[in-house]
């Protein structure tokens, strides 16, 4: 096989685009082919539930790789093309139109797809949100006096609720658990977010199951276990996402809650790596616990690390998990894994903003979570992230008081 078949990246989302950019930044000179089944240039997803819904005139989304950037860097972007198979022995990716492309090394960044509601009737008024096309379809239903029902009190659902409410729509959030943000978010933060939505006029219903859904092309009716029936113009379903592993499964690559990779993001197949929302990886900071993150920064950082390793670096992925969400004028940020903590120390920052520090049984900082208006919590969360990475055992008084966290950081002389 010729030596310049280069690197193929399947999945032209945040992670794939970032990897392609990074390969060139690292000086990789051979061919780079970025294959994506969406027809758009690689774009960022976080604005899809925020700015894109809030503002009719908003540019469709922010682009990670423009035409000019692709051309300048000689990155070949094959868009609107789905990879349907990998021939691991012949080292080829087969596209759904039958074309075969050869690779030296392959990176899978196939992302995730929304979990579908079982037994829901087919209707253009029942929507999911993952792509720019989904966001534009949803936006057309968000207007003053429209009723938007949101199924699922997770991040996507709550961000959509905040955006829709900010545009004057009537909004009802339906959550089957006893509270919103049950996964990975501590209760005081979930309470703050719930209160924020209620203050803004969103109806938040927790602990209710959906008994049935009726829908036609104009309206959706949702029957709930508390006897209520919600009648809405549109239903947006945000009940989680599933990693896109079809391609890996077809190729016989190991899958374990996502494409299973090792610390260096290598899959079980030779010369094939995976990164971003589609993969699960062992995290050295948490005793090798296998994680799959659906977070923008993880996609970005793993893309960058995969690019280094595709060109021989053999580095291990150690970044502290990090996530943010914006709702109304509030931001929530979480660094580390909240559920690894045993002890919680609270720091208040004024204007209702606060941070929770989560310590394990050795009183090591394992996570920090916070919420507040604007970017009030950002500095402390960032410093916490550094303390977590450095495995610091901070004095508890310093956490609760407003001591500058910078002073707790061990720093090179």
């Amino acid at each position, binding site marked *: 096989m010729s030596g310049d078949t280069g690197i193929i990246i399947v999945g032209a989302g945040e992670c794939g685009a970032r990897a392609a950019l990074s390969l060139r930044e690292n000086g990789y000179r051979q061919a780079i082919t970025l294959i994506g089944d969406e027809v758009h240039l690689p774009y*960022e997803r976080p604005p899809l539930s925020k700015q894109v819904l809030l503002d009719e005139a908003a540019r469709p989304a*922010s682009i990670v790789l423009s035409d000019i950037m692709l051309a300048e860097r000689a990155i070949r972007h094959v868009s609107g093309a789905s990879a349907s198979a990998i021939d691991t022995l012949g080292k080829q990716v087969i596209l759904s139109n039958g074309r075969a492309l050869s690779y030296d090394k392959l990176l899978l960044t196939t992302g995730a797809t929304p979990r579908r509601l079982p037994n829901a009737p087919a209707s253009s008024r029942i929507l999911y949100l993952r792509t720019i096309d989904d966001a534009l379809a949803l936006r057309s239903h968000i207007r003053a006096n429209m009723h938007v029902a949101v199924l699922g009190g997770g991040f996507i659902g709550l961000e959509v609720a905040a955006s829709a409410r900010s545009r004057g729509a009537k909004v009802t959030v339906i959550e089957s658990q006893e509270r919103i943000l049950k996964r990975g978010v501590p209760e005081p933060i979930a309470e703050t977010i719930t209160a924020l939505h209620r203050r803004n006029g969103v109806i938040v219903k927790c602990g209710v199951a959906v008994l049935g859904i009726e829908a036609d092309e104009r309206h959706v009716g949702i029957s709930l276990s508390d006897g209520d029936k919600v009648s809405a113009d549109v239903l947006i379903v945000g009940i989680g996402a599933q990693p896109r592993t079809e391609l890996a499964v077809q190729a016989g690559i190991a899958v374990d809650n996502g494409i299973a990779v090792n610390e260096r993001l290598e899959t079980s197949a030779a010369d094939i790596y995976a990164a971003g929302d589609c993969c699960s990886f062992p995290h050295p900071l948490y005793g090798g616990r296998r994680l799959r993150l659906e977070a923008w*920064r993880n996609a970005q950082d793993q893309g960058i690390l995969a690019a280094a390793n595709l060109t021989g670096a053999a580095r291990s992925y150690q970044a502290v998990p*990090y996530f943010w969400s914006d709702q109304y004028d509030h931001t929530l940020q979480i660094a580390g894994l909240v559920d690894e903590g045993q002890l919680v120390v609270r720091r208040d920052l004024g204007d209702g903003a606060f941070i929770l520090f989560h310590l394990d049984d050795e009183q090591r900082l394992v996570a920090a979570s916070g919420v507040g208006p604007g*970017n009030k919590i*950002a500095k402390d969360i*960032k410093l916490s992230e550094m303390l977590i990475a450095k495995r610091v055992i901070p004095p508890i008084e310093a956490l609760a008081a407003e001591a500058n966290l910078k002073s707790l950081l061990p720093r090179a002389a």
Partner: protein
Amino acid sequence: MTNWVDACAADEIDQEDVVRFDHAGRTFAIYRSPDDEYFATDGLCTHEKIHLADGLVMDDIVECPKHNGRFSYKTGEARGAPVCINLKTYQVKVEGDRVMIGIGA
């Protein structure tokens, strides 16, 4: 021609920190380095226009509070994804206990 504007008191900025300064419809960020030098850049991140004054300053880097894009505040150079557009920088001088920035005519 440089137009010098009184931005803040020199002791208003902690060492290795940043403050926001708004002037004539524009926003600036003013920094004090670990060795007490002062610098100024545009105040909004070139990624999604977030205030850099809410960011973290470490050594000669400011890290955006939103998505952690990094800039050298001394040169304005973009130093870390997702930012790729540099920040404009401005001249700074300290007169008495005031920090003045030069923002052009």
